[in-house]
C-alpha cells in the first residue's frame, strides 16, 4: 500500500467522529480492478447513500476521494472515485480532476465528474483544458461545456464551429445551441455563411435551438427573426420544419398565414409538418385556414388535414368530412368515416348507418365504430327514431348500434324487431336486446323464447334472456323455472335449463342438480354443462359423482372436464388441498385429454403434493411430455419460493 494511502487512512481515522471501519474498505477499493468482486464498491455506495440520506456533510469523504485520484490507485479505482465525485463533489474536486483531463486514460472519467459538479470552478477547469486538448478529449470537453450551458465558453466555441475537424465542429455547434443566448446565436449566425453542408445544417439546427431558448426566455422578436431566416425554401426541409414549429409556437395566430402557404409546399415533410403545426394553433382562424386548404390538397395531405381537424374537435370541420365520404381516394373516405365518430352529430346517424350498410372492409368497420362512438345527448334518440323509419341493411346497422351503445330506450323497438318477418332483423334485435333490455322485460323475452322457431333462434333468445336476468344482483328466475317445469318438449326444456344455468343464480343450483338426475340424456347433459360453467366452485361435489359413476361414459367425461374447470376457479383452498382434488380427478381420467388437462392445472398450485401427482404420470407414455413439463414448472416455482424466503 502506498505511503500516501497510509497517511490518508490515518488522516481519515483522525477526523472527528468518523469510524475507522472504512479503512479496510478503501484499501480494497484502491486496488480494485474490473472483474473483481464489487463488494467493497457496494459497501461504499451504501455508506455514501446513508450519509446523503442523513444530510451529512461529506467534505471529508470528498477529500479522501480526491486523494484517491492523486495516489497510486488503479484506473478502475480512479474511475469509481470520479463517479462518486460526480455526485458528491464540489469546487474542491476541480483541480484534481482538471489534472486528469489531459491524459487519455483518465480524461473521460475526470470529465464525467466535472460535467456534473456544479459551480464555476468545474466549468473553468473544462474551459482551461480545452485549448490544449485534441481528438476525442477535445470533443468531450466541448460536449461537457454544452451540457453545462456554460455561457463563458462561447468565445472558445465560436472558432471551433468552423473547425476543419468535423467532430469538433459538430460538437461546437451543438454546444452553442444548448448554451443559447445572444452571443451563441451570433456565433451560429456568423457560422451559417462560413460553412457548407453537412456542417451548415448542424449549425442551422443549433441556431433553431437557440431561437427556441430565446422564445422561452421572452425574446420573441429575436426568435422570430431566426425562424424567418431559416424557414424559407432553400433551407434543408427538417430545418424549415423546426423553424415552422418555432414560428407556430411563438407567433400563434401570426403563424397562420405562413403555415397556410407551406401547406401547399411540394416537399412532403414541410407540407405535413405545416398542417400539423397549423392544427396546433387554437382558435377559429386556424380552423378556417385548414378548412380552406383541404380541397386544394392532394389526397395524402387531405387525410392529414382531416385528421387534424378531427383532433381539434371543431365542428366547422364536419361538413368537410361529409363531403369527403364521396372522395375517389379510399384513404380520404376512411379518414372521413373515422372522423365523423368524433365530430358527428344527429345528422351523422343516417349517414354512418348508410355507410355501414353499403361499404365494405375497413370503411364499413370505420362507419360502424363511428356510429357506436357518436357523442351527444341527441344521438340515442336519433338512432331509436331511425330504427322505426328505415328498412333492410340500414335498419340492421341501426339495431346493432343500439346494442353496442346499450340504448335502453330502444328496447321496445328491438322487441318489435325480434318479431320481424326478416330473419336477420330478428337475430340482430335479439342480440342487441342483451345490452338494452332490463329485468322488467324478462317476461317478454321468455315469451319470445317460447315462441321461437327452431333451435338456433331459441338458443339466441335464451342467451339474451339469461344476459338480461343476470343484470339483477339476484336474478329472478322463477318465471323461467316455472316454464321449464311445465314444458313438455325436451329440446325446449333443455334450452330453458340452459338459461337457468347461465344466470348463475343461487336459486338455479337445486334445479340444475335435479336435472342431473333426469331420465332424458339431453336434460342431464345440459345440467352437467351448466354446472361446469358455474361462476364458483360450489357444484364441484355435484359433478364428481357423475364423473365417477354416471352410466353414460360421455357424461362421465363431460362431468370430469367441468369438475376441472371449477377446481381452477379462485377459492380459499391451499395448494395442497387443490392438489389432492386434482389427484382424485387424475384417478378418474381415462383419456389422455383429461389427464393432460389435470397436468396443465397442477403448476398453478405448486406444492409437494402437486409435484407427486405430476411425477406419477411420467410413466404414462400418452402424457409423459406434459407430465415432464408440469414437473419442471412446479419444481421451478417451488425453488423460486424457497429463494425468496
Amino acid at each position, binding site marked *: 500500500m502506498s505511503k500516501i494511502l497510509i497517511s490518508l487512512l490515518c488522516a481519515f481515522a483522525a477526523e472527528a467522529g468518523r469510524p475507522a471501519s472504512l479503512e479496510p474498505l478503501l484499501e480494497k477499493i484502491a486496488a480494485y480492478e474490473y472483474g473483481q468482486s464489487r*463488494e467493497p464498491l457496494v459497501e461504499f455506495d451504501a455508506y455514501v447513500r446513508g450519509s446523503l440520506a442523513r444530510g451529512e456533510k461529506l467534505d471529508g469523504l470528498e477529500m479522501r476521494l480526491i486523494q484517491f485520484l492523486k495516489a497510486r490507485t488503479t484506473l478502475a479505482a480512479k*474511475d469509481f472515485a470520479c463517479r462518486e465525485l460526480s455526485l458528491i463533489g464540489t469546487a474542491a474536486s476541480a483541480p484534481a480532476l482538471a489534472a486528469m483531463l489531459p491524459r487519455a486514460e483518465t480524461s*473521460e472519467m475526470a470529465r464525467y465528474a466535472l460535467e456534473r459538479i456544479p459551480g464555476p470552478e468545474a466549468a473553468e477547469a473544462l474551459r482551461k483544458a480545452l485549448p490544449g486538448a485534441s481528438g476525442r478529449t477535445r470533443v468531450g470537453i466541448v460536449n461537457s461545456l454544452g451540457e453545462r450551458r456554460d455561457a463563458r465558453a462561447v468565445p472558445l466555441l465560436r472558432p471551433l464551429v468552423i473547425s476543419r475537424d468535423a467532430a469538433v465542429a459538430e460538437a461546437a455547434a451543438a454546444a452553442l445551441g444548448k448554451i443559447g443566448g445572444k452571443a451563441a446565436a451570433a456565433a451560429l449566425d456568423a457560422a451559417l455563411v462560413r460553412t457548407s453542408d*453537412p456542417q451548415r445544417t448542424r449549425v442551422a439546427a443549433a441556431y433553431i435551438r437557440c431561437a427556441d431558448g430565446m422564445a422561452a426566455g421572452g425574446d420573441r422578436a429575436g426568435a422570430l427573426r431566426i425562424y424567418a431566416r431559416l424557414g424559407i425554401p432553400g433551407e434543408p*426541409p427538417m430545418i424549415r420544419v423546426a423553424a415552422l414549429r418555432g414560428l407556430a409556437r411563438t407567433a400563434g395566430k401570426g403563424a397562420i398565414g405562413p403555415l397556410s402557404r407551406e401547406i401547399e409546399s411540394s416537399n412532403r415533410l414541410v407540407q405535413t409538418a405545416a398542417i400539423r403545426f397549423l392544427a396546433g394553433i387554437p382558435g377559429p382562424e386556424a380552423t378556417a385556414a385548414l378548412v380552406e386548404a383541404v380541397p386544394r390538397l392532394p389526397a395524402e395531405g387531405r387525410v392529414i388535414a382531416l385528421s387534424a381537424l378531427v383532433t381539434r374537435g371543431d365542428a366547422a370541420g364536419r361538413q368537410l368530412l361529409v363531403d369527403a365520404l364521396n372522395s375517389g381516394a379510399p384513404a380520404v373516405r376512411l379518414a372521413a368515416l373515422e372522423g365523423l365518430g368524433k365530430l358527428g352529430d344527429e345528422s351523422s346517424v343516417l349517414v354512418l348507418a348508410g355507410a355501414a350498410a353499403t361499404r365494405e372492409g375497413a370503411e364499413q368497420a370505420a362507419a360502424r365504430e363511428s356510429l357506436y362512438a357518436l357523442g351527444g345527448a341527441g344521438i340515442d334518440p336519433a338512432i331509436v327514431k331511425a330504427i322505426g323509419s328505415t328498412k333492410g341493411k340500414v335498419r340492421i346497422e341501426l339495431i346493432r348500434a343500439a346494442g353496442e351503445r346499450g340504448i335502453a330506450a330502444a328496447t321496445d323497438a328491438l322487441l318489435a324487431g325480434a318479431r320481424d318477418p326478416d330473419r336477420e332483423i330478428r337475430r340482430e334485435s335479439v342480440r342487441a336486446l342483451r345490452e338494452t333490455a332490463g329485468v322488467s322485460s324478462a317476461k317478454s323475452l321468455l315469451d319470445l323464447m317460447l315462441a321461437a322457431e327452431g333451435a338456433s333462434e331459441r338458443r339466441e333468445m335464451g342467451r339474451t334472456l339469461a344476459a338480461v336476468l343476470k343484470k339483477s344482483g339476484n336474478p329472478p328466475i322463477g318465471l323461467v323455472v316455472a316454464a321449464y317445469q311445465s314444458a313438455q318438449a325436451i329440446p325446449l326444456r333443455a334450452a330453458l335449463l340452459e338459461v337457468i344455468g347461465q344466470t348463475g343464480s343461487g336459486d338455479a343450483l337445486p334445479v340444475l342438480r335435479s336435472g342431473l338426475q333426469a331420465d332424458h340424456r339431453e336434460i342431464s347433459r345440459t345440467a352437467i354443462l351448466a354446472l361446469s360453467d358455474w361462476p364458483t366452485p360450489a357444484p364441484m361435489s355435484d359433478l364428481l359423482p357423475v364423473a365417477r359413476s354416471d352410466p353414460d361414459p360421455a357424461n362421465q367425461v363431460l362431468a370430469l372436464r367441468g369438475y376441472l374447470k371449477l377446481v381452477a376457479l379462485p377459492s380459499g383452498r391451499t395448494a395442497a388441498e387443490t392438489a389432492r382434488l386434482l389427484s382424485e380427478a387424475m384417478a378418474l381420467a381415462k383419456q389422455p385429454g383429461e389427464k393432460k388437462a389435470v397436468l396443465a392445472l397442477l403448476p398453478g398450485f405448486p406444492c409437494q403434493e402437486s409435484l407427486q401427482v405430476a411425477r406419477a404420470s411420467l410413466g404414462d407414455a400418452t402424457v409423459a411430455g406434459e407430465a415432464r413439463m408440469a414437473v419442471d414448472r412446479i419444481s421451478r416455482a417451488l425453488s423460486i419460493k424457497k429463494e425468496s424466503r
Partner: protein
Amino acid sequence: MPARRQIGRRGFLRGFLNGAAAIAGSPHLVPASALRAEGPTAPSDTITVACIGTGWQGGNNVKSMLEEPGVRLLAVCDIDARHLESAKSAVDQKYENRDCKTYHDFEEVLARADIDAVVLSVPDHWHGIVSVRAAEAGKDIYGEKPIAHNFAEAKAICEAVDRHGRVWQTGSWQRSVSQFRHACELVRNGRIGKVHRVEVGLPGGLTDFDGLGHLDAPAPPPPHLDFDRWLGPAPEAPYSPARVHKTWRWNLDYGGGMLMDWVGHHVDTAHWGLGLDDTGPLEVEGHGEFTSTNRVWNAPAKFRVTATYAGGLTMVISGGYDDIRRGAKWIGEEGWIWVDRSGIEAQPRNVLGSRILPEEIHLERSSGHHHNFIECVRTRRQTLTPAHVALRSATPGYLGLISILTGRRIRWDPVKQEILGDPVAERWLQRPMRSPWHV
C-alpha cells in the same frame, strides 16, 4: 385490392434534402409533377421502415413490421453481426428477395431519404442519441421503452420529436391490449370511486436470461460484436458476456434494472387508468436491495418506490417482494380493479361487466401497437403512447431510482418537471456521455 399508386413520397424528398444518401434504383420515385395528382387508387403509400437494433425485442419488432400491411422494411442495422444476419434473413425470407440492406452504423440508415420511419430497439443507454438523431433526420420513430436511460435524455427526445414534428410511438404495447384498455376505462369512469392508491407489481431480481451471468470477468469481445460502439456513450469498461445482450439491463450505465425495464408497462398502465399522462408525482421515495454476487450487475435486485400525487393519491411500485401482485391494481373508495397480461379482476366482480356509455370517457382502441404507429405515420395523428406520455410514465421510475441510490426523498414539480431543493439529487437526472457522443 386496388393497385397501389407508386407515388413519389420519396420523390418529394429527392433533390431537396442535402447530404441525402443516394437513392438510385428506388422503385418509388415518380416525377414531382405527378405527386399532387389524385389518382383513382388509394393515395396512401407504402411506409418504408428500417429497424435499428435487431436483437431479442428488436427481432420481435422486425417480425411485427414484416406483418404490417402497407409497410416495407428496407433496412436493418445492428452492431452485432449475428443479430444483423438473423434479421436480414427474416426479411429476405418474407419478401423472397435479398433487397434488404444491412448496416452497422445507424447514421447511414438515418441518412437514407427513402426511409420514412425507424424502429429503435437498442439498449437504453443508446435511446437518447439514436432517437434525437432520427427526429432530426425527419424519421418517425417507434422507440422501445423506457423512453430513455435517464430523465434528461428522455426530455431531449421529447423536444426533438416536438421540434421536428415527428410521430413517436413508445413500445408500451399494453395500451393496445383490450383488457388493459377496459380496466383503465372502468377506473377513469369512476366504477370503483375515487382512487386513493395504486399498486404496481413488477418483476424483481436480475434475471440471467441466457445463463451467461456467471461470465462476468473481463474477456476479449467476440469478433461479431463491435463492443466499443456498443458501449457508445457509456463509460469505458471491459467486455464480458454478462455486460451485454439482455443482461445489460442490470448495469446502471446501460439500463435501470427491472424498475426501468418495466416502468414503461405497468406504471404506464397505472397512469393511463388515472388520467395522469400529462402530470407526475409530487414526492417520490425509494428503497432498494443490492447484491454484489455478480461483478458487472449493480442495479437493485429488489425495490419499493412510493410516489405521492396531487389529491393524496399514492402509487407503490414494487419489485421482488411478495406482497404486491404483478400488474396494476387501482384501489378506490368503492372497490378495486387489477389487471395484468394474465387477466383482469375486480371487486365487486360485476364492475367488469359495466358498459362504458357513449358520453363517458372512451380510451382509444387499437388493433395493434405497431399498426397504431403506422396509421399515425400516415395521418400524423398522435399515437397511443407519444413521447411526452412515455416521459411521464418513466418519471416515477427515474425519480425512484434516484431516491434508491441517494437514500433521499425526492420532491418534484410536475409542471416544470424539476427536482425541488436538492442539488445533489438533481445531478442524477442526467449522465455524462463518453466522447464523442452527445444528445
